[in-house]
């Protein structure tokens, strides 16, 4: 039996298992910490930085920080919320996100976060980058305009030997997700759907199927993101 420790999130005493990630511990205690690159059951990477909290006075990502006895966490504060909102806005100017024409609209975590943080327009000038839409694979289409570089596909979608179908190419502002050409030929329909599901935005779309759920009936059309954790009626 793992040891139970006490952490304080915005002054609220929370109990959780020692060594558990802060994000998990918070969720178990009904506290929602927003995430984008986090995916349940996949090793965290801390790349989107949206779950950043102040842990004992230092900025740390909740998805990668194991809890310890007596940890003091600032999560739902004006300062942290403003920072998160600003980070979400960064994604909107970095890519080309046209929600009305995106198939993922309503199921998109980035869009849902934007609603949650009441973003009407980003504070930064749009970068309007020229990005590719890659349709050379038999099972999926990658639309780089929408990619938020969360690395979820890289970390989650693997073959039987544990090799990743996806990888990063280049670095910095030129970084992009690639699908292994040879492995893509072995990719079956289930894997393609899994990849689509893992993608928080509409960057990875399985081919030959679209709009199975009508707009208005999608995940975040009814309830805002995080409400399952916060248990809002």
């Amino acid at each position, binding site marked *: 039996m793992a040891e139970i420790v006490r952490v304080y999130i915005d002054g609220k005493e929370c109990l959780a298992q020692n060594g558990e990630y802060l994000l998990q511990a918070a969720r178990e205690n009904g506290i929602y910490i927003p995430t984008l690159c986090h995916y349940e059951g996949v090793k965290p990477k*801390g790349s989107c930085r949206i779950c950043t909290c102040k842990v004992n006075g230092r900025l740390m990502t909740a998805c990668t920080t194991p809890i310890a006895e007596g940890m003091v966490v600032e999560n739902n504060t004006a300062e942290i919320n403003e920072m998160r909102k600003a980070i979400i806005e*960064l994604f909107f100017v970095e890519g080309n996100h046209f929600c009305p024409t995106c198939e993922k609209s309503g199921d998109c975590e980035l869009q849902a976060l934007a609603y949650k943080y009441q973003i009407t327009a980003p504070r930064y*000038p749009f970068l309007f980058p020229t990005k590719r839409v890659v349709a050379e694979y038999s099972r999926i289409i990658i639309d780089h305009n929408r990619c938020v570089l969360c690395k979820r596909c890289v970390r989650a979608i693997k073959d039987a030997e544990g090799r990743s179908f996806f990888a990063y190419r280049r670095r910095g502002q030129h970084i992009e997700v690639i699908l292994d050409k040879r492995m893509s030929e072995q990719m079956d329909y289930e894997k393609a759907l899994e990849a689509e599901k893992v993608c928080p935005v509409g960057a990875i779309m399985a081919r030959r199927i679209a709009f199975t759920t009508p707009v208005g009936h999608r995940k975040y059309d009814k309830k805002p993101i995080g409400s399952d954790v916060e248990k809002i009626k």
Partner: protein
Amino acid sequence: MKASIENILRKYQHDSTRLMDILLDIQDELGYIPEAYVPHIAELLGLSDADVEQTLSFYHFFSTRPTGKYRIYLNNSVVAYMMGRSEVAAAFEEALGIKFGQVTPDGRVGLFETSCIGMNDQEPAAIINNVIFPCLTPFRVREIVRDIKENKPVEEMINYQYGEGQNASEMVRSMVSNNIRKVGPVLDPHYKVGEALKKVISMSPEEVIEEIKKSNIRGRGGAGFPTGLKWEFCRKAHGEKKYIFCNADEGEPGTFKDRVILTELPRLLLEGMIIAGYAVGATEGILYVRYEYRYLKKYLEEILENARKKNYLGKSILGKEGFDFDIRIQFGAGAYVCGEESALIESAEGKRGEPRDRPPFPVEKGYLGMPTVVNNVETFCSVVKIILNGGEWYKSFGTEQSTGTKLLSISGDCRYPGVYEVAWGFSVNDILDMVGASKNQVQAVQVGGPSGSLIEPDEFNRILGYEDLSTGGSLIIFGHHRDLIREVVLNFTNFFIDESCGSCSTCRIVPVLLRNKIEKILNARGVEKDLDEMLEWAKLLKASRCGLGQTAGNPVVTSIKNFRHLYERMIQKNKEYDAGFDLQAAIRDGAEATGRIPIV
């Protein structure tokens, strides 16, 4: 093709964690890494093609396109520009008839840019096929290009003579100069190689750590973590194997002290690593050297070989039963972020140089998941002297909070650029006097490289030390005739954009936004609000994972804080808002395509 790949892979026992070495060997042999090789490499290593590609595409000295028989990489650091880089660059382009980023039509010569190559004391400098060409002038460029056209081997393209000291030795033969200007206890060459090691093996590992702790030495890479404590954590951590890493990836623009140590005192450095191995209980050391210093490869390998012969490395070192330790060299391939300790480890494992999330720290889970100590070159060298003379002796240098000495790499507008070893506690004023820079001609000093601060004359009485101006040792001096925003802040911000690994959203995006703002101001479209927004946006970078990202806004932030008047001079008064949008530029492509000139 297959045969040569197989030979290289056999050399590394088909170990996928040695992918960096494999790619470096192929690149050395062919000048590039053909894409057609990727599936073969992947198959033989049990990786996917994408795995190989993601490492390959991360480092800027790897290329999948032919880069020519002669590959010229001209440094684009700020000091290179200050010393006449623009004229040198133009001379290369003119003599070769190509632009940067291109290869001559006959495929013989490639011309590329690269970030600071650690030669700030002898700029402008270029690397041609791993040979360093310092102190370039347009005249010298024409000589080099003439030699290239005559097919002369790069090694023979010597202008006059080799640099001083070991630069002229058989194994180095380099035109690089050391420019050691002030020697202190660490750089002092009068010590007996191996003596500290002999002393150490008569002590217990705990006693060694205790002595290091007593000296209060803190990491010399810049972060300043207490070395003794780091060793103790690693000694106490559980792992089948432990590793000692030396971080010789000095990539902070303006730093070049490790180059000088690697050249003149490599034995001192190795001895420090071996002592660390003994103290921590490690069996393997890895000396991670930046690609730019590949001209020292043969030399360093020979020194390792000699150390093995003398039983400073190997089994039962100096007869001490059970003390086994060996060192291998790992070269990088062009990535500033690999100077961050966890990115360095990732890179040595054959991966992209992306920093890891912490915890766990490398002392618990580092190289191949094992407890690992990562220390700076200078830290290891200091350790040897501490063992020889004692922790108390070491504390007699420096200040209470910052004990010992620091090697400074000083460049820019001063008479004597070079490496100076000074005790902590020196003021910036003292330093300017020391290097021959008259104070009334100095506009600003960049302390700690681009990730540090740009300070103004009113602050020159501040002292170097962990309690005030903490630094890894890079100091760049700017005279009054320099345009700080255009020449310095813009250059540094572009450096951070080029060198971001791209993993964190903040570090990938914010510097680009800041750069665009600087350009807007330089284009006379700036307003007061832009300055406040830059400061506000830069704060987001503090949420990045590693030190690179967290400090990427420092050029902008410290320059606005200390030199706001320079920005104020360029912004539009009486105007609250300017989108900075250039309609003519925005419609240029469309106008060209349709052949119509719109009336706007």
